[in-house]
């Protein structure tokens, strides 16, 4: 099996003719972490619900772990682990009870199920809280338990629907680490939906951007970023009167880009490596620099260019958005 998930022309139309998913194609390779990125209402969850057999497609077809999601739904359910949005867990049960119940749902023999529950509690760091009711857990603990529940039967393909929405930055990073480890150690294929650019960038080997029920871009984070253009270099001359001279020097390295007042920006045609020549040329022209900023395109830039709008919710909720500007690495002063 080389493709863990194959989706061809998948459509879901709801009553009233609303096309939540409008003919998407996807190939997720076995052992890959695939990031499905899009704003609220883009069709991410509808797609996940179809792939996890919770919702029937109204068009197209999809296979997960080699099984058709409609005609062989039972086989799909045996092969997948699912952690849906909002960690669907009964608040009156304890973590241990839920894990044991989940093992029963997967028809795992009693002894083995109990052992597996303990192992997973340990793994997600919930051994001490195992006998507490889930209602008393923090958001991060619930998500970790939810992840553990999805892993009870050692699934071939793991679906995580917005696993870190609403989590604080520390819990988010901890969950990322767990997903990475899982993928690395067990080779589990992970299909992850997110509305956070940083999450997709950090975790996913490949990213699909969905907007309005259609996939608008797909590739590795690097491919996607490269596709939208060269890095931008912004030079702030120490002497503000020399902005004009600076622009003249920079013009030979690529087309001008928008910069801050008192600074000159250029799209580096030679890529980030071109920065050395720029610094040398400025030195030869005897222009002292106050600041040199290199801005690599981010997935955010990709998103804006492919969809024409910014990712809703990202700016306000994600810790990643604050760091977005910072990722354009500063080189020297």
């Amino acid at each position: 099996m080389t493709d863990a998930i194959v989706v061809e022309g998948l459509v879901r139309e709801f009553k009233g003719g609303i096309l939540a998913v409008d003919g998407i194609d996807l190939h997720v390779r076995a052992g890959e972490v695939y990031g499905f990125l899009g704003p609220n209402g883009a069709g991410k969850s509808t797609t996940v619900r179809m792939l996890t057999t919770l919702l029937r497609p109204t068009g197209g077809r999809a296979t997960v772990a080699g099984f058709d999601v409609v005609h062989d739904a039972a086989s799909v359910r045996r092969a997948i682990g699912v952690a849906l949005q909002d960690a669907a867990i009964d608040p009156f049960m304890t973590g241990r009870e839920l894990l044991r119940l989940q093992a029963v749902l997967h028809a795992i023999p009693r002894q083995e199920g109990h052992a597996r529950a303990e192992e997973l509690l340990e793994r997600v760091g919930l051994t001490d809280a195992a006998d507490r009711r889930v209602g008393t857990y923090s958001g991060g603990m619930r998500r970790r338990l939810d992840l553990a529940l999805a892993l009870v039967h050692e699934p071939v393909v793991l679906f995580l629907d917005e696993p870190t929405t609403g989590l604080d930055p520390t819990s988010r990073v901890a969950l990322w680490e767990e997903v990475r480890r899982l993928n690395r150690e067990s080779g589990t294929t992970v299909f992850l939906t997110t509305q956070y650019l940083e999450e997709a960038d950090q975790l996913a080997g490949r990213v699909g951007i969905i907007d309005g029920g259609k996939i608008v871009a797909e590739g590795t984070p690097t491919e996607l970023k490269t596709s939208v253009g060269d890095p931008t270099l912004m030079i702030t001359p120490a002497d503000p009167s020399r902005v004009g001279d600076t622009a003249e020097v920079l013009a030979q390295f690529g087309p001008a880009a928008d910069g801050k007042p008192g600074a000159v920006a250029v799209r580096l045609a030679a890529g980030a490596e071109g920065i050395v020549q720029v610094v040398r040329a400025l030195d030869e022209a005897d222009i002292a620099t106050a600041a040199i900023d290199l801005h690599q395109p981010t997935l955010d830039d990709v998103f804006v260019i492919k969809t024409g709008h910014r990712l809703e919710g990202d700016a306000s909720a994600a810790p990643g958005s604050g760091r977005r500007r910072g990722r354009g690495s500063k080189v020297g002063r």
Partner: protein
Amino acid sequence: MNPAIRQTVALARRSINSTFRFPQAWFPSLFFPLVLMAIFTASFGRSVSFIPGFPHVDGFLSFAVTGAIVQGVLISAVGAGAFFAGDIEGGFFDRLASSPASRSAILVSRLCASVVLAAGQATFFLLIAVIFGATVQGGVVGALIVIVLAALLAIPIGGLGVLLALRTGSAEAVQGMFPLFFALMFFSSTFFPRETMTGWFKIVADINPISHLVEGMRVQVIHGVDWQAAGTSLAIILVLGVLTVGGSAINLRRRLEGDS
């Protein structure tokens, strides 16, 4: 053990445990019938023997206890429906649906839990009544008939709760149906014998299946073991059960296929 049976048992246990851990889920089903039983008994006491047409009883409590049991089962069945709807709202239902667990276990486990809870309730109400001086004329067999019928009654009523849950997917909507159940009970012989009713009220109570159901249980307490009356109650339970559980099964399938 067969995985489907094991899943049904595990899910039923989970429903019972979670019900007990949420006092709002079980407290009303014990408290309100007790209060009503206490008020009616205090008001009427032994004076019922002077009410024309009232069947011969040795005290109102003996008469009221089966009404309280049916009322309790009704309240907890609404609770079961709300609980099921809560599972749909909270996503627990999706957890079951996306697992390879037996589809029928999802429905059957909920009904099994209601049956166990109803048997417990009926036993509790009978014990309270006996402690406060009621006599069960049918003796142990009569009491067992009442308990078994109450337990079985949880199937059609629980089925209706689940049916509403599957159709609406909202715990609030299910709870909103409660007054309807209550009205159905009041326009029946649950609290007073049909012999004392007149006019349109009597007509409604006469055709209300709840009347015949309760009477089939009550006679075991106030007269003695009556297999024919028990059979009538059982038949009503069966007919209602086929309707509501069948409806639930159809709606469960519809929801599992994601068409609702």
